[in-house]
């Protein structure tokens, strides 16, 4: 039990970025993100004993994180999505960085406008997963993944204009 907990902690420590990124595309407030992080952790802990292929830890975390987030976002009607760009920490006086950050925030806002499934597909795409890996996590064909990515890119382009 102790070693299982240690192994689990090591994995979460190395891969926590995945959970944070999934949270970022589904939730806007820190409270919701923290809440969902805990819920994802709980579901990962429960399914950890059934994790057989240790080479696919990333895919396992993505699948659990997306399923948990979709479940939460759908059942939790108290979630209020604000249209404003979230406040960010004060930054150094660097115009290039500032502009890129504003654009990054706009991209996140634009991602929030996609439906839940396309949002998750785009996250996996932006995280450099190939079409086959995305298809495996979502459960659709890689051709379908390609079609959806192209469609979402067009939508994002429209939102970002």
């Amino acid at each position, binding site marked *: 039990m102790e070693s299982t907990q240690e192994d689990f*902690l090591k994995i*979460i420590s190395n891969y926590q970025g995945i959970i944070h990124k999934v949270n970022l595309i589904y939730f806007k407030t820190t409270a919701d993100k923290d809440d969902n992080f805990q819920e994802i952790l709980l579901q990962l802990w429960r*399914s950890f004993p059934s994790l057989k292929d240790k080479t696919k830890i990333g895919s396992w975390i993505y*699948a659990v994180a997306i399923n948990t987030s979709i479940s939460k976002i*759908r059942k939790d009607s108290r979630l209020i999505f604000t249209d404003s760009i979230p406040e*960010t920490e004060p930054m150094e006086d660097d115009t290039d960085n500032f502009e890129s950050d504003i654009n990054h925030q706009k991209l996140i806002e634009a991602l929030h406008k996609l439906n839940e499934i396309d949002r998750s597909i785009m996250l996996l795409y932006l995280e450099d997963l190939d079409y086959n890996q995305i298809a495996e996590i979502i459960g659709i064909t890689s051709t379908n993944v390609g079609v959806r990515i192209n469609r979402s890119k067009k939508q994002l382009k429209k939102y970002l204009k």
Partner: protein
Amino acid sequence: MENNNLKNLWKSGINEDIRFYSEPKLNNMVIKCSRKSIQKLHPRLILRTIIILIITFLVWKLVSENEGIIPIIFGFILISILVGSLILMEWSTRKMIKYSYDIPVKDWIKNRICEIERSIRLQKKYDVLIHIIALALSTCTYVMYIYILKITFDLIAFIVALFIILSCVLALRMAAKKNYKKALRSLQQLYNQIEP
């Protein structure tokens, strides 16, 4: 927008957006998770213990006291209903443990839709039985109550208690049905996003 631009834009600010948790904080969260995992089973454990206690009491009462054929038949019926509900509860718990999030999104949504549809079907099928079980449970509890406190049977109090319990069960079941239907609609919408 070019593909690389979109990816570059995503990566340009992602580290500023994420607050990575320290290892001690993650450790605390993992400990909480393992505890929470156990705690979620507790309400069922309490209900299971109550049902087992009532069954034991009824069996003991049936064996130790000879009160004629009608109380014996009544006792047997109550015990059978309670044992049946206990088995159903164990079966649903096993099902819940099997239920996992680490499958593809499409399969997960499909599984959940099937589960909810089956629950709605079961609810319709066993609607009357659930109310009978609720009545049986409250009757047993009342019998235990008057037996332990050694008070006389009061028919009006008994009817009022049954009425209150039945109303509560009915209200809870209506709320549950509404929630199930809402969840089903929402999951079907999600599934349509994958398979339009």
